[in-house]
């Protein structure tokens, strides 16, 4: 299939996510809604792709963990909170609002794929 006609869809249609903090690190889960879609996120939601989105605010490493028993990935993003919640000057001092950014990632999906909201490509 030619690359320019591979359908893409936002990650938000394929997976859900939650973020939290541990000291100066933020964790970010990416969990496939459907078990069979774990292979899509495993292949495409790489640490590099996460860095493309979060790079401007993550000063340390981005480490990816695979959690196939629940169809999920977990990313640990180090030095993302300007020293941690106690010292973060940002309006959101926590890491809790950060998960929604990853949902904007574009994923390649098979033609006819139906996303979580009912969107069909």
């Amino acid at each position: 299939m030619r690359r320019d006609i591979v359908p893409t869809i936002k990650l938000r249609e394929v997976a859900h996510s939650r973020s939290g903090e541990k000291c100066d690190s933020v964790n970010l889960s990416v969990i496939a809604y459907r078990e069979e879609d774990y292979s899509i996120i495993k292949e495409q939601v790489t640490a590099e792709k996460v860095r493309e989105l979060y790079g401007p605010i993550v000063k340390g490493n981005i480490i990816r963990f695979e959690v196939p028993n629940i169809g999920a990935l977990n990313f640990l993003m180090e030095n993302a909170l300007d020293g941690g919640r106690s010292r973060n000057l940002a309006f959101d001092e926590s890491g809790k609002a950060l998960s929604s950014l990853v949902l904007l990632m574009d994923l390649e999906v098979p033609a006819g794929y139906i996303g979580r909201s009912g969107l069909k490509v």
Partner: protein
Amino acid sequence: MGEVENHLMKKIRLGSGTAWARDRFQLALDLVERGDIDYLSFESMSEVTMSNAQVNKINNPDIPGYDPYLERRIGSVLKDCVDKGIKIISNQGWLDPEAAAEKVIELAQNQGIQSLRVGAVIGGDLTELLPKTDICLAETGERIAELGDRYVSAEAYLGAEWIIEALKGGAQVVITPRVADPSLYVGPLAYEFNWDMEDWNRLGKATAVGHLIECACQVTGAYFCDPGYKDVPDLAHVGAPIAEVDESGDAIITKTPETGGIVSTETCKEQLLYEIGDPSAYLTPDVAANFTTIKVEQVGDNRVSIKNGSGLKRPENLKVLVGVRDGFMAEEMVLYAGPGAWERAKLAKEVLVERFKEEDLNPERVRMDFLGVNAVHREASPTPSFMPYEVILRVSIHTKSKEEAQKLRKVVDPMAVSGPAGTGKWSTMGTSVRPVVAIYSAYVPREMVNVNVIYKDI
């Protein structure tokens, strides 16, 4: 039915009464009234809780060292818990679990309770000890002994063993200082089922259960609901979770009857990974829990089965949080709306940068963000695809001294009369200069932490 089958069928129901110091009070009331629980746990801390309490205590020596919400949280359910045989495990002891235990006794006496034993776990506070040792901050390598005036506090994360001891000693209410959150749930389970505290697999399972419910409604639909993608019935009345655990450590996660919310494989998966680094090695004082073997399965309406967790030997050392003074922070805002709001907000930012010099304001760090555009995701925010209708310029600074932080108002207040057109003024209730206590971590050998349980009785 034989004795063996009966034993295997014993289930303990754990209720999670609060996710943190300032969660809703209604959760525990509903759990006690109709949750049919055996244990009610209150998790009242975030990272900064103890060090903030230390600073408050220095400024106001007369205020109690325990959670100011203790009286309402425990007092509002105490009589019903005693009548129903529900035991309470709470980390609201903060700096002074003994005083907290005495307060609980006082509440009980006022409520006409005839008999009660409260156990207080004493000893996690390492503030006086650590400067006499060679222990260093993990993040910077500095010796705590060399921090001088900047040093505020140090407390260890305790595990389940002291909760178990208090329960064995007959406590109906257990008050602790800082413990690892899952330990509030591992403790009662290990006590009820008489587990070997080196049975790492079972402790790993129990730790997963504790982790799932320790943030209360985050597993029952809260911090989850995303309309159109993850819908949750009646979020306003979302109910507290209940874990129904058997002797093997396998569990069902459910919630308080007749409450809003939902318990699904989706809510459980999100909470399982919440604030986890490596899911195969989640370290607590009790165990190195492995979440990568767990099976999560919907087995009924608002009933999810959690099975097959595992674990490895607990860490040698205990993690310690260390509070270190780090200057002050201040925050101000100016508001713009309507046509040209974005241009005017950007102009206001340029003006402020110059005005800092006029007041000789030299912060260590400064942020200027636009609420509605890039204040939440910061530099990772995508460029807006349309002009925002309203834009708020938010300025925050970090300074060494309080006097320097107080200069921010002198720079921003005049913007109301000497800034761009239509500059709106933020109500001053938000103006605050706050001291910063930065949290670092350290690790100490278990032997360094001297803990015991004391009892207060009616």
